[in-house]
Every structure is written in structure tokens, then in C-alpha cells.
């Protein structure tokens, strides 16, 4: 991406630091996510990927550094402004995080409760719910409870819920973890389709090399709390650095 430097990023992290007690998880992490881009962050388990993405949506307060989403600094932002900004961000949780006391329909309606005004030409909850479920091919599961769905179906419903407010940025926290290879491929395909259809910018946290290969435009390797390496999948997979190679060897 040669033109990156001239384009304004939709999301920018500068020198992000976060510790839990003596455990320094992020030691000055930086990233820029550009419009329409699929940026993959790879790192070992426990390397701080999930902490970083939770800092991005205000679930964890970083110790220092800055987080700018659409030119707004989310660290200094008030709760109301943050809630409004969150409508621009879809978040797919590692374990789907569907509300297990609600049906699929109610799960999808939940984010709409406070933000109907954010949707252009709002035509009613039912239409949006059905459209989101159609996108993930699960319209027939609309009245089922999450416990009645398989792992892959739960992940799709969670994706539909993340999309319901038509966000401009989607964050995926380990989207294929815990799924069989075929279902994982379906989810990756779905993520690509959604990106093409809605022109979203995606930040994908994963340690799945196949997922990274298929979906990434650019990659960052998070090692020891810092950006260890950055580049396209091809560039990184052909790197001679043993630490980088370790990610791509089976």
C-alpha cells in the first residue's frame, strides 16, 4: 500500500502501553487501520492481542498512549460520546458472546434499542434483523436460542449482530478459534463477503495462518508487546527472521 501515507487512517494507535500488575502486556504498540483495509494482527496466545483490541473499544483503559478512531480520541471521551462512536464499530468476540437468555432475534435487536437514529432510512427492527441474518445465511434460526445453535452458527449470528448497526469498522477477535477447518473457511469467506458488500475496514486478531493468508491486506506481528514486524502476508511469510518464520511454520 504505497499510498498509505497520504490516506488518513480510520483508526490509529500510538505508543499503547498496558500492564496488569508486574506483567507488562503492551509496551508501546502502534497501528494504523486505513479505510477499506483488512489488517491482521498476529501474535502468540497471551501476547496481548485481545487486550489491545479491548483497549480500542474502551473495554480496558490503557496505561498510556493514544487511540484515535475517526479523528476522535477515545481515551479522553465521555461515556455518551463513546457509546455513539461504538455504533460505528462492530465487534466479534472470541466466544461469540451471544446473550444466552435471549433468542437470535432478540440478540440482534439488542444493539438497535438505543441507536435506531444512527441508521439511515430506518425501516423497522424486523427488516434490519432479517437482512443481517440473510447476510450470514441463518434466517431460519431467527427464533432459536443460542444454546440450540452449533459453534459455527453462533459465530455467524454474532457476526450478524456486529453488523446490524452497519458499522464502518469491524474488529474480529480470533474469529476462527474453536471451529473446525470447514466452518472456519466459511466464516473467513463470510468476512470477505461482508467487507466487499459494506466496504468496511477490518481489524482481525488471529493466530490462524490460513485466515491471515486469505483475508489480510496487511499484517502486524505482535511480539513482546510491540510491533515486531509489519508487511503483507507474502512479505512476512518469506521473511528470514526466525521469530517471524515461527508464525508461518506448521
Amino acid at each position, binding site marked *: 500500500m504505497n499510498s498509505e501515507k497520504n490516506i488518513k487512517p480510520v483508526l490509529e494507535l500510538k505508543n499503547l502501553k498496558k500492564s496488569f500488575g508486574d506483567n507488562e502486556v503492551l509496551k508501546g504498540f502502534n497501528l494504523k487501520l486505513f479505510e477499506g483495509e483488512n489488517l491482521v494482527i498476529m501474535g502468540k496466545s497471551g501476547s496481548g492481542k485481545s487486550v489491545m483490541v479491548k483497549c480500542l473499544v474502551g473495554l480496558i483503559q490503557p496505561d498510556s498512549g493514544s487511540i484515535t478512531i475517526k479523528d476522535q480520541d477515545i481515551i479522553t471521551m465521555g461515556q455518551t460520546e463513546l457509546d455513539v462512536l461504538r455504533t460505528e464499530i462492530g465487534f466479534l468476540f472470541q466466544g461469540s458472546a451471544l446473550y*444466552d*437468555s435471549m433468542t437470535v432475534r432478540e440478540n440482534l435487536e439488542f444493539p438497535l434499542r*438505543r*441507536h435506531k437514529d444512527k441508521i439511515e432510512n430506518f425501516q423497522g427492527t424486523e427488516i434490519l434483523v432479517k437482512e443481517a441474518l440473510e447476510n450470514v445465511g441463518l434466517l431460519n434460526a431467527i427464533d432459536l436460542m443460542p444454546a440450540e445453535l452449533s459453534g459455527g452458527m453462533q459465530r455467524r449470528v454474532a457476526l450478524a449482530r456486529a453488523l446490524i448497526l452497519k458499522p464502518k469498522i469491524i474488529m474480529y477477535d480470533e474469529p476462527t478459534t474453536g471451529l473446525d477447518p470447514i466452518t472456519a473457511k466459511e466464516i473467513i469467506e463470510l468476512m470477505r463477503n461482508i467487507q466487499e458488500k459494506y466496504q468496511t475496514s477490518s481489524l482481525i486478531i488471529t493466530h490462524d495462518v490460513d485466515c491471515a493468508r486469505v483475508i489480510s491486506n496487511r499484517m502486524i506481528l505482535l511480539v513482546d508487546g510491540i510491533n515486531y514486524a509489519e508487511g503483507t502476508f507474502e512479505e512476512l511469510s518469506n521473511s528470514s527472521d526466525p521469530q517471524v518464520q515461527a508464525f508461518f511454520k506448521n
Partner: protein
Amino acid sequence: MIFSFYEMNKANSILLNTKSFFAEIGDMTLFAGRFFREVFSPPFEFKELLRQCYNMGNRSFLLVSVTGFILGLVFTLQSRPTLMQFGAQSWMASMVSLSIVREIGPVIIALICAGRIGSGIGAELGSMRVTEQIDAMEVSGTNPFKYLVITRVVATTLMLPLLIIMGDAIALLGSAIVENLKGDVSFLLYFNQVFDALKFTDLLPATVKSVFFGFAIGIVGCYKGYNCAKGTVGVGEASNSAVVTISMLLFIIDFIAVFVTDIFFEI
């Protein structure tokens, strides 16, 4: 004085436990403070509040009814021989009604609800915390504290007095049945004696006390669940420690309530 390594370790562990005990009390106080800050500010989750009131009232109804009925029945059966020894069986209705309405009813029913409602809240919110459902709620722009905590605490505060009043009434019915079968006392006479014995000053402190019991059940259950950690083990711990803490708190509240009632109404 020379302390052994074992004694030093033990002293250190007692110090740490004391420190974490007071830290938890502090955290719980801050949690309750947040409740009071947010309870009167919009948006209000009325639909969820009604759902919680219905769930708590409806699901505890049978348990409270059975407990209350057996409480009245057993209390009367156990007291009869002693009262008969003194020829004071005519005091049965007033003795049972005062004991149940003032003290036994609220405490026993609150303890039952601590197990039924408090542990349920702790486990439900704990499970939502460890499966990231609370985080998902926050990311979707809904304040999970308002949606989950405030609705549950308000629901327990509103429903517990009602459950206690209902439980007391059923306990008195159980007592009346025993008196009717064993002592040939008519229901009309029994309840006349009950209402003669009970005064406003008996009902008011008991009802006010039950409001505090309800609040304690809700706030501790929510605190334990909302701050649950350590995965599924943590959910069990949250549920278990919610019941233990609530039970202890109920007796403390009861003691304070009796103390205050004594000052104002001279029991």
C-alpha cells in the same frame, strides 16, 4: 521474641486476608455508590425491570409459600405444649403473629431468597461476565450496569417486601390450621386475635427492614456476579460467596433494624 517461619507465614496470610476483606467491603461500597448515582438518571430500563420483578416474584412464590406455611405450622406445633403448661394457649395467636411478623418471617424468607435469588443473580451475571456477554453489551452502546445491575437491585428491593408479607400471611394461615385442628379455635377467632395483637409499629419496622434485605440481596448478588473472574470456577465462587455474604449481611441488618426500632418504638 523470635518467630518461626511458619508463624511469620501465618501472620502474613492473616494480614493479606484482612486486607482483601476490607478491600472487598470498599469495592462493594463503591459499587453501591454507583448504583445510587445511576439509578435516577435516564435511560430507564422499565421493560427489563418488569421482567426481573416478574421472574423474582413468580419463581420464588412457591418456595416462599411452602416455607411460610411450614414455618407457621411447626412454630405453632412446637409452642403449644409449653403454652399449655402455663394455661396460656389463648396467647398463641398473638405470640405467633408477633414473632412471625416482627422477626422470624422476614429473616427466614430473606434467607430463603438469598439462596434462591442472590445466588441466581451471582451465577447469571458471573456467567455473563466470563462469556464476555457483559462486554458485548457495553460495546453495543448499552450501559450493562443499568441494564443488568440496576434492574435487578430495584427488583429485589421491590419484590422482597411483597414476598415477605405474603410469606408471613401464609405462615399465619399454617398456624391457624394447627390451632383449628388441635385447639378447636375458629379461623375467624384466630385472625381476630392476630389483628388485635398486631400494631402499626410491628408492621412498619418489619416492612422497612425487608426493603433493606431486598437491597442487600440484589446489590451483593450483582456485585459478586458483575466482578466475577477466573472462568467457570469463578461463577461457582460468585454464586457461593454471594449467598454467604448476603446471609451474614442480613443478620447485621436485622440487628441494626431491631436496635433502631427499639430506640424509636420501644419494643
